[in-house]
């Protein structure tokens, strides 16, 4: 119990004293229990008064300090610092707001304002009597970060962290790095290819000693919390030794009798069970797809590097923070959606991009030369609620008309696709002469400088049509030809139809179908099912799980620049959790009274941060607070049926003594 309290009442140069009789306040509180000295001052925040307070605290060995002045938002920190300079623990300081909440708010009633000020100061004194010293909770934080996902966002974040002198473990589920970007050819804004960009980043990664790259690796378990996470990572073997002769390997690949669809080309081509994606793929040696391998042994006969004895490993990694960069999946149209899977020449935008990349002199798909291309926009994005469209009805039972139902759960715009498809069309026209591009849009969204690309496309002679929101384009067969028709807004609802050699469905981004790693960390998702940030503007790369940040398209659709920006932001945030080797947390936390508690679990349910769990104390089961996770919100307090929880600095005794002091004159 503090019994030598100093109280300072500020005039604020008239701002307070014009409406509140500060001398009256001083005399009203001077005899309160525990008050050792009471003073008024012209400006409590002035340098001179601050020095005077330090002097007073030291010479009189004060154990509590109250300043009645402006809002604590302005000067709580100032006066806590005064206390600290006088070697008084800052939690023995209590602020009374008598400017914003008294003199200014009640400038129309001086007597009322003075009376209120008196009670507020008494209430602050009541609180400071019960205050005691608190030390910040300091927890060690391991200076290391795990980056999950080695796409362009994850790779870039890993490099950045390494350059900030922070060790990184980069964990990639696939056997090759680069994610989606390695699948793209020439990228917009630069003349770089995706492969070149990935190569640059890969070279930067292997030249940094403090990055450990794990491919074919998956996080299977996680324990701990901010500053001290342990990740269990399971690696699957490549079945190829690192010291392999590329020539022999190619022969081994040629010898493999197994053919499976090649995911790298979005299944428009096939690959072997022993494979790599493209010649300069990283890491630069192939992998055996053990699920499809028949163990015929053909490759082993040719290449000594093949090693079926390799085994998967479990490794434990200790880090202070985790950066999630797990990327997206391209939307896969449902069967028959705009003829996908129904007509032979309907493909998605990612497939089209691969097709342009792997074709040389002429653009061919399934042996047919492509001249007329119809691009149907917003497939799988900007979907509308319900499936009431009558257009869905008429398609049934007619194999010649595709479904053009655009209902679904993906309300959001995938943001990258307009620019991506326009760019792809420009690049395709540059590579293959004589293409006719017909864009069936829902309004072009080439935001920012990307607009220039749209202008370029228009200059190229690409045709742009726009459908009405309730009347999407229709894909149908006519005399064996694939046709696309639209009621076009731009020409006042004229029906326009185009014979298409190839229909490209401009598919958007969807969250990863396999999101086991997200579930493992319990990262919350938004209504679009992508990972959710705490606050789009205030904390855009942080999650509610302390110490876990999110980067790139796992948070929502983004282009490369946007993904990298968010990756670098997340790197900074993750770095700040670990850079000092320890973390200081506010000591305002929930405290359990072990005698009263008999573990019912309600507090654990109420806690938004999973900071409460059952612990045993002697023979008894009680609730235990994890001090490094508790944020001091107090949500657990009111739910306890036996009132066994208090919040530091907001205990029942403190709150009730404040209420009593405020109510003093009332009865």
């Amino acid at each position, binding site marked *: 119990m503090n019994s030598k309290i100093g109280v300072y009442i500020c005039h604020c140069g008239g701002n307070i004293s014009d409406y509140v009789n500060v001398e009256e306040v001083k005399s009203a509180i001077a005899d309160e229990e525990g008050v050792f000295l009471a003073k008024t001052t012209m400006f409590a925040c002035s340098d001179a008064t601050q020095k005077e307070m330090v002097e007073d605290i030291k010479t009189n060995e004060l154990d509590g300090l109250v300043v009645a002045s402006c809002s604590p938002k302005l000067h709580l920190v100032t006066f806590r610092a005064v206390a600290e300079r006088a070697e008084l623990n800052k939690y023995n300081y209590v602020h009374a707001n008598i400017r914003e909440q008294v003199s200014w708010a009640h400038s129309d009633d001086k007597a009322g304002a003075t009376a209120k000020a008196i009670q507020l100061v008494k209430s602050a004194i009541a609180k400071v009597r019960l205050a005691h010293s608190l030390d910040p909770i300091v927890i060690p934080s391991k200076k290391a970060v795990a980056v999950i996902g080695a796409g362009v966002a994850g790779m870039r974040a890993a490099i950045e962290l390494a350059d900030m002198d922070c060790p990184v473990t980069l964990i990639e589920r696939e056997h090759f790095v680069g994610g989606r970007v390695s699948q793209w050819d020439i990228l917009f804004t630069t003349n770089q290819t995706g492969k070149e960009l990935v190569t640059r980043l890969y070279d930067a990664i292997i030249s940094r000693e403090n990055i450990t790259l794990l491919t074919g690796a998956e996080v299977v378990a996680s324990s701990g919390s901010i500053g001290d996470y342990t990740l269990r990572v399971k690696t699957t073997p490549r079945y190829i030794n690192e010291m392999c002769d590329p020539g022999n390997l190619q022969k081994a690949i040629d010898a493999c009798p197994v053919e499976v669809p090649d995911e790298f080309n979005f299944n428009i081509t096939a690959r072997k069970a022993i494979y790599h994606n493209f010649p300069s793929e990283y890491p630069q040696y192939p992998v055996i797809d053990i699920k499809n391998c028949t163990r015929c042994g053909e490759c082993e006969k040719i290449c000594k590097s093949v090693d079926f004895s390799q085994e998967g490993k479990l490794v434990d990694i200790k880090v202070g923070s985790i950066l999630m960069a797990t990327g997206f999946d391209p939307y896969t149209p449902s069967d028959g959606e705009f003829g996908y899977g129904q007509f032979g020449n309907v493909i998605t935008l990612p497939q089209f991009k691969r097709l342009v990349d792997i074709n040389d002199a002429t653009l061919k798909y399934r042996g047919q030369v492509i001249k007329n291309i119809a691009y149907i926009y917003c497939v799988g994005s900007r979907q509308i609620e319900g499936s009431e469209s009558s257009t869905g009805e008429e398609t049934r039972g007619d194999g010649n008309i595709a479904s053009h139902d655009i209902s679904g759960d993906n309300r959001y715009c995938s943001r990258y696709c307009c620019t991506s498809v326009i760019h792809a069309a420009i690049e395709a026209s540059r590579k293959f002469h004589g293409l006719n591009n017909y864009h069936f849009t829902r309004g072009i969204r080439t935001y920012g400088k990307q607009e220039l690309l749209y202008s370029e496309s228009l200059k190229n002679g690409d045709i742009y049509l726009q459908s009405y929101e309730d009347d999407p384009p229709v894909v149908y067969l006519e005399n064996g030809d694939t046709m696309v028709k639209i009621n076009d807004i731009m020409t006042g609802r004229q029906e326009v139809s185009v014979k298409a050699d190839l229909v490209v469905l401009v598919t958007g981004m969807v969250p990863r179908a396999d999101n086991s790693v997200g579930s493992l960390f319990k990262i919350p998702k938004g209504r679009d099912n992508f990972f959710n940030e705490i606050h789009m*503007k205030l904390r855009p790369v942080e999650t509610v799980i302390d110490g876990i940040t999110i980067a790139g398209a796992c948070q929502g659709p983004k282009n490369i620049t946007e993904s990298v920006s968010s990756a670098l932001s997340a790197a900074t*945030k993750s770095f700040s959790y670990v850079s000092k080797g320890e973390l200081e947390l506010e000591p305002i936390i929930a405290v359990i009274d072990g005698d009263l508690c008999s573990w019912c679990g309600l507090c654990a349910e109420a806690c938004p941060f999973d900071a409460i769990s059952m612990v045993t104390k002697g023979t008894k089961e009680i609730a235990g607070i994890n001090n490094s996770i508790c944020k001091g919100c107090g949500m657990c307090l009111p739910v306890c049926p036996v009132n066994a929880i208090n919040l530091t600095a907001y205990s029942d005794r403190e709150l009730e003594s404040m209420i009593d002091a405020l109510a003093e004159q009332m009865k």
Partner: protein
Amino acid sequence: MTEEKKKASYDALVIGGGIAGGEAALNMANNGFTVLLIEKDLSIGGKMIHLSKVFPTLDCSACITTPKVSEISRHPLITIYTGSEVRNINRLSDTLFEADIIKHPRYVTEEDCTGCQLCEQACPVVVSDQYQFGFVGRKAAYIPFSIASPRVAAIDIENCTLCGACEKACPTKCIDFTQQSIEYLVRVKTVIIATGFNLFDPLKIPRFGYGRYKNVITAMEMERQLAPTRPFNTVLRPGDGKVPDRLAYVLCTGSRDVTIGNPICSQICCMYSIKQAQLLMGALPMADVTIYYINIRSFGKGFEEFYDQAKGMGVNFVKGKIGLISEKENGNLILRYEDVNANTVKEAEHDLVILATGVVSNPDNASFFTNNSLKLDPFSFICQTDMLASPARTSIEGVFVAGTASGPMDIPDSILSAGAASSEAMSYIISKQ
């Protein structure tokens, strides 16, 4: 003269105290680097601190900005000069830049001012308030705006009559008419440019009548009328102070328009107009709001849903460009436009027209480096020389760009861009050490 310049050194110089510059400064300071933040205006907080609510969450802009701003201004590793400008920066070596900075006099001793506003009450001079776009007046001795940081007075010396009333009223005697400009020579290891953007000047499109017709205003002017720190308690049209009930938004004013030299899309106008339309539907339940657009670009997280929400609330979206705006005698406006859906030219009458002016580059960008050339793009935004892999990098090593100084961006993207800039600046300093 160099001898008179005050010298100081910091790890980083951040030019611009808007949301991007502030975020970048805070990121660096939170990781232990010292930062000098230079702001031309009298308060930090940039454009964002003046906004009403922000899309697509409709949380209030001041609620987001003010806690950030106070964190920045209180941070022990961040030094802020408001009312200051960077004259010139010289790159001397990899991690050594020398910057000439001038701090203009405020005529108030910042440390002593308590923000009590007594000088404001005493000052007899009334001029138009630039922070409220002239909707109301302010004094020559004034606190820039209620949530300014620092929240201290300044003397508008151009309009001041030197009557001395403020000096007499000031309880801390902090008004000092003898203040002079102070020049600093500052050495830093890295520079972050976060100079933001300017809004397109609608006077350049005379056919829209801005400046001639009183009831044609810009969206930023509307923004002030909708903000919590707004000048009036409701939305009024400037012509006659009437509450408007047929409002029109003209999108792409100064964007996607080669005739005025700006072919690019400004990225934010669709969304801020949709946001204002929603707020107007709340503020003026009986009003009709029409948005004339070319394409609606609701591309960000939660944006399309926000657009749908506006349609659901009854905002009228019309696909068509505005050809001409003319004024009627009663101050109402006739908009001549091409209705694309109906394929005809139509006319519509509105009583308040809001021009959704676009984003143009800040002309200051060209002036910071005289000896090294800072590459700009064709629109005078700062060129991102490695846009895909290092979006904050510029043509000068060690100089990074944050926020809209490199091109149009919304707030979430600006903040991420600031994160990228601070990240690259930190790794630059650390790896060069």
